[in-house]
């Protein structure tokens, strides 16, 4: 027993060292990426670029399931983006509430009879396309319920433009978001197949006319933790991964894709959460198997504001879903693991995800058991334990503060000194419970997976109007993982 524990301890130490090393490498690449982004943005004139013929037209796909509260505000905001040619395709996924009716009423839509839909990828047949010439950029598609992926596929089939962008119906885009993404695409149009956007949490911010006017930190605890978590994942993680072309997920809340590539890989996969990670894995696989040069880019200055779950129940349900989706995707694509054919993706991204994301809860759990064992068998001293705990905390804290510094260097969305102090304090508080809960939720997700639970879980919507009374009727909705 003693030998076993000792062996485990040595192993755990290497594990922690490896993960720390990877984290810091990625953070380093993130800094590099942000540095070149800042330099690039200085010379880009986005206003002028947004009217230039060389920016390709984009189709925005908005899957909507039971979104009657927020959909009008969101569509209105999406219709006023700063971009020369784009269309907004809202796909009503057989909502049980009045989503379709409120859309038809608000925009005086009429059925469009002359629209032919090419079924390039499989999806539930479309019932009807609605349109109003007074809003030339808006299409509303009505179809029977088929899930989020199915709705996206239907949107792709209807779309008229070469680039598609998926957006959650509960999210708001900044006016410049599309053109900033298109700029990244235009840097290398031949190779770019997907671009991820930066998702930020809008809880606590003031919103007027579908535009975030005053950026503030959330007042509630759960959204506050998530704000920091997203910041760390997007700025400290994604920028770095995209720098070495090893990005494994483009957020379902806001991402842009080359339509032809998405059609080639057969569109979004149905019937399971985690479709946003799945499409990226499929793109990596397709391009690498056909030996085509490609890149999956990330654009941190294209911002999408989303509402984070603000209660324990909804948050845990979301995280369990992510846990399930992640496990499913890893199992499905285990053949890519450590195969040189799949380059960075197979040799680095996949192993990293399996060892440090998917299996993370098991290491944490066994670690805890081992710790109990050490204490019980009197193999350790409190000094040693304290040292390890302190090193662990400092590592994590430096990482978190590293992303905060990145944020303040490049974007400076939170300008108040009070907010900065609050973020630094909460970054430390996350170690007391929030991270541990994350491990628990992921574990529960895995259990759900094994019991073949396949639903989306609960999620509630709040009207964007903060003064409006919050609606607390839980409903199942199609919302993808924001950071997974």
């Amino acid at each position, binding site marked *: 027993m003693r030998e076993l524990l000792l062996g485990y301890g040595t192993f755990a130490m290497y594990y922690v060292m490896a993960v720390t090393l990877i984290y810091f490498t990625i953070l380093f690449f993130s800094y590099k990426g942000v540095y070149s982004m800042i330099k690039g943005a200085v010379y880009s004139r986005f206003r002028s670029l947004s*009217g230039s013929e060389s920016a390709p037209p984009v189709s925005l796909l908005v899957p909507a399931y039971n979104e009657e509260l927020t959909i009008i505000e969101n569509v209105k905001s999406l219709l*006023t983006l*700063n971009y*020369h040619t784009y269309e907004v395709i809202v796909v009503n996924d057989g909502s049980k509430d009045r989503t379709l009716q409120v859309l038809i009423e608000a925009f005086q839509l009429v059925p469009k009879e002359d629209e032919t839909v090419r079924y390039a990828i499989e999806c539930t047949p479309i019932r009807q396309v609605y349109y109003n010439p007074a809003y030339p950029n808006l299409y509303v598609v009505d179809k029977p319920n088929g899930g989020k992926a199915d709705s996206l596929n239907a949107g792709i089939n209807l779309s008229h433009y070469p680039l598609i962008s998926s957006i959650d119906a509960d999210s708001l885009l900044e006016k410049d978001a599309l053109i900033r993404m298109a700029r990244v695409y235009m840097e290398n149009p031949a190779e770019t197949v997907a671009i991820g956007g930066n998702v930020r949490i809008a809880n606590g911010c003031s919103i007027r006319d579908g*535009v975030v006017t005053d950026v503030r930190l959330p007042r509630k605890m759960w959204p506050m933790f998530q704000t920091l978590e997203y910041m760390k994942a997007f700025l400290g993680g994604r920028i770095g991964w995209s720098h070495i072309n090893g990005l494994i997920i483009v957020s379902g809340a806001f991402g842009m894709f080359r339509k032809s590539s998405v059609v080639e890989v057969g569109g979004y996969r149905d019937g399971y959460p985690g479709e946003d990670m799945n499409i990226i894995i499929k793109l990596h696989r397709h391009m690498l198997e056909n030996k085509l040069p490609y890149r999956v880019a990330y654009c941190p200055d294209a911002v999408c504001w989303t509402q984070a779950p603000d209660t324990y129940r909804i948050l845990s349900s979301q995280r369990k879903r992510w846990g399930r989706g992640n496990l499913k995707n890893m199992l499905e694509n285990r053949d890519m693991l450590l195969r040189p054919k799949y380059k960075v993706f197979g040799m680095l991204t996949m192993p990293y995800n399996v060892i440090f994301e998917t299996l993370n809860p098991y290491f944490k759990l066994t670690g805890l058991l081992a710790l109990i064992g050490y204490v019980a068998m009197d193999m350790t001293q409190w000094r040693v334990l304290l040292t390890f705990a302190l090193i662990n905390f400092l590592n994590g804290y430096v990482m978190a503060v590293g992303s905060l510094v990145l944020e303040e260097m490049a974007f400076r969305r939170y300008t108040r000194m009070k907010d900065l102090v609050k973020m630094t304090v909460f970054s430390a508080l996350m170690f007391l419970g929030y991270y541990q809960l994350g491990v628990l939720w992921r574990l529960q997700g895995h259990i759900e997976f094994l019991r073949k639970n396949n639903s989306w879980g609960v999620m509630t919507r709040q009207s964007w109007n903060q003064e409006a009374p919050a609606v607390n009727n839980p409903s199942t909705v199609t919302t993808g993982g924001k950071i997974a």
Partner: protein
Amino acid sequence: MSRTEAKRLNELMYEKVVERFWKSGGSAGREACGILLVRCLKGFEEAAREVRTLLEAELKSPVETVFDPDGKQAAYLLFGVAWSRTHYLALLVKRALASRAPGEFALMLAGAGEQSERNPLVFEKMTEVFGQLPEAPEVAIFHEQDAQEGGSQSVLLVDGDEEMRRYLELRFRKKGYRVLAAEDGKQGLDLFRKEKPDVVVTDLNLSGMDGFHLLTRLHSEDPDNRSKIVVFTDNRVEEAISKCFKLGVADYITRPFSPVELEARIERLLQ
């Protein structure tokens, strides 16, 4: 009271202001100058004298007075007196006149703004407005801006960029247009309904309402194209341009732009 005589009063006022400007060696161009216009139907001369004494006692200095040859109106030029103080004096004068000739007088508060020595039109407008003022125990207030804007052609500017709005507003104003500015589509549409401007200069990239939708709405508000619409935008895509012309716009100007060209095109539309 005929118009020609009213004009004489303004000419006299203008002369005094110019005289003051030259005597001070140019520095008077920047000083404030309050103006009180008084009309009294009964016992005008006595009333005018009383007002003058009152003002001089208040200010402790002589007051420049101009009399209308018609014999019913007078203007008091209070050089170096700020607007707020002039307002106070006007209220004192009102009280004095109200006890003297109730219901028989008119009183207007005005000011000669910066560089008024170059602008005789302000005084013309001032006396014209005053001439039409009914006799009432109230202090009417004259705004110089009204003088500049009244009667001229109007331009509605719809642009989300504040800098651009202010710059164009300034330029159009100098051209003598009455400028209405809106920061988004909704505000633009409201102003359009209320004011029926001669020209609308709008961006396509607006907040709150999509630019094409605004054009559609403007078109349905005004199907005969009585207001000329100029689209002024970053969007240089052919398709967008043709879509705009189909929606009845009169001109399409892309940014980066030349302000001279923009003004020339607007001028041509207004002819």
